[in-house]
């Protein structure tokens, strides 16, 4: 039961990240933090966060990782047909008040969707965005322009401050009050942000990635132990409290055969 779509635009937003704008056959109806499975016929299917949804158009930010994302970067251009199932999973809780959105690299994707929803709900949004370098400037644009205030850090200092999204978040959390923190990026980074927020008693949610196979909670591939949390069905957004009890978070990963292996940094 895929929804067909046409690629309206495929625009690089960094050396190995492409923004795909798809026009779906019918409205998806996602909430921020939900994801879709995108099927490239005869190639494969990958989980991707919905970075924006407007009418029948959705945005996806796709980093080149391996077989399928590599194929997409090399071949999928304007006019291609992609097949989408979803929206899947449980997204972020959209809260009121002042929110800090912390995104690392392509992790900004679900935060863009979230930012629009938060603004719609009358929240004030501050974004802390970590990038590898200024080459990824375009990746940060959508979130930065949606937020009331945006701070960018790059690893090499080529844009904004030199440092990581965690550094920015730490500074912001120290100097002001936030009602909610949302984070998406590498798990090590998310761990740190969660600790920072929880130490200050600020509610925090993080969006996780795991190897997703079924995407609907029936195969156990994406599970986080020891709580048995399925990223695809119980998440991908989890609150900080839950994640501190999920020992695998930031440490372990299940490979395609279900073997528990250390998480790649």
């Amino acid at each position: 039961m895929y929804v067909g779509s046409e690629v309206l635009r495929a625009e690089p937003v960094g050396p190995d990240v492409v923004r795909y704008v798809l026009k779906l056959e019918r409205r998806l109806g996602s909430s921020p933090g939900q994801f879709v499975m995108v099927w490239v016929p005869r190639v494969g299917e990958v989980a991707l966060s919905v970075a924006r949804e407007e009418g029948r158009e959705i945005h996806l930010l796709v980093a080149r990782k391996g077989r399928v994302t590599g194929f997409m970067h090399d071949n999928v251009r304007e006019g291609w047909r992609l097949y989408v199932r979803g929206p899947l999973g449980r997204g972020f809780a959209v809260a009121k008040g002042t929110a800090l959105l912390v995104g690392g690299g392509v992790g900004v994707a679900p935060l863009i969707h979230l930012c629009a929803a938060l603004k719609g709900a009358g929240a004030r949004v501050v974004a802390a965005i970590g990038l590898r370098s200024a080459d990824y400037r375009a990746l940060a644009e959508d979130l930065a322009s949606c937020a009331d205030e945006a701070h960018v850090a790059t690893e090499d200092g080529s844009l904004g401050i030199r440092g990581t999204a965690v550094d920015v978040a730490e500074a912001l959390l120290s100097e002001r009050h936030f009602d909610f923190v949302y984070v998406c990026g590498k798990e090590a980074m998310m761990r740190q942000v969660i600790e920072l927020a929880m130490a200050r008693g600020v509610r925090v949610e993080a969006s996780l990635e795991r190897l997703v196979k079924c995407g609907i909670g029936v195969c156990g591939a994406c599970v986080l132990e020891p709580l048995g949390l399925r990223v695809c069905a119980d998440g991908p957004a989890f609150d900080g409290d839950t994640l501190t009890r999920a020992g695998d978070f930031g440490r372990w990963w299940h490979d395609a055969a279900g073997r528990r292996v250390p998480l790649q940094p």
Partner: protein
Amino acid sequence: MVRLVDLRVELAGLELRNPVVVASGPLGVSLGLMKRAEEAGAAAITLKTATLRPREGHPNPVVYELPYGLLNSMGLPNPGAEEMGRLISEAKAVMRVPLIASVAAQSPREAEEVAERLRGADALELNASCPHVRGLGAELMDDPQLVADIVSALRSFGRPVFVKLSAHGDWIGVASRALGAGASGLVAINTLKAMAIDVRAKCPVLGGVYGGLSGPAIHPVAVRVVYELHREFPDVPIIGVGGVETWVEAAELILAGATAVGVATALRRGFHVIGEIVEGLRAYVAGEGLASIRELVGAAHR
């Protein structure tokens, strides 16, 4: 007023607090998910089918959702018997309900090697019915003698041995040979061989091309297989599986002759479905004015 009813059943020596068992597959290799299923009310847990060596399974897409069921082409991903055995030991330490280990193998020798590593489980289930993996699973249905030989091998571990049947092939014949070789019970059915083609992409959807159909669509087929198995082998305990979404389908399988029922696809709606099925059965047994659900096993034959 819901009367006090006894939902306990005995299944080839396994004492179950109620007849609702998690079927092989949906819990993957996660102790956390097993615990969630136990807390939701499951009376026993079937582990993901294990092979001797690790398997990555088929590439995505591995599932295709239909309004009336699910197609899956997982391809038996599993970390191999060794790691599955470790999981079982861990699980036995914290779980109170019986664990049924599922074995896939192509020869008695291989089955023995797998089962050796899974011996911590309370029972063994031979997967003779996975429809989407070449050489493993459903192909066994074509070779009743091989099934019998594998069952004999598995018997040596002193655990009840179940054989999980496919609705394709000669399941009565396979069941008969397996029981002759000492199988303690039967599990029926696995998914039906099926596939999906996308009319726009004009190619098969599933990475493994073929898949197994589960959920409501196959329920009437499961009822028939269980009914016929119970008629042929009235004393053999059966775990009825296929399209159990509510207590109604569970009750149908029990009336057909199942002592317990397995649930897989329904879990996509959440673990609470297990509790709902259990409580639904409780109310049903009470409403029928019976003291124990055991009185209903095979009642449709009377």
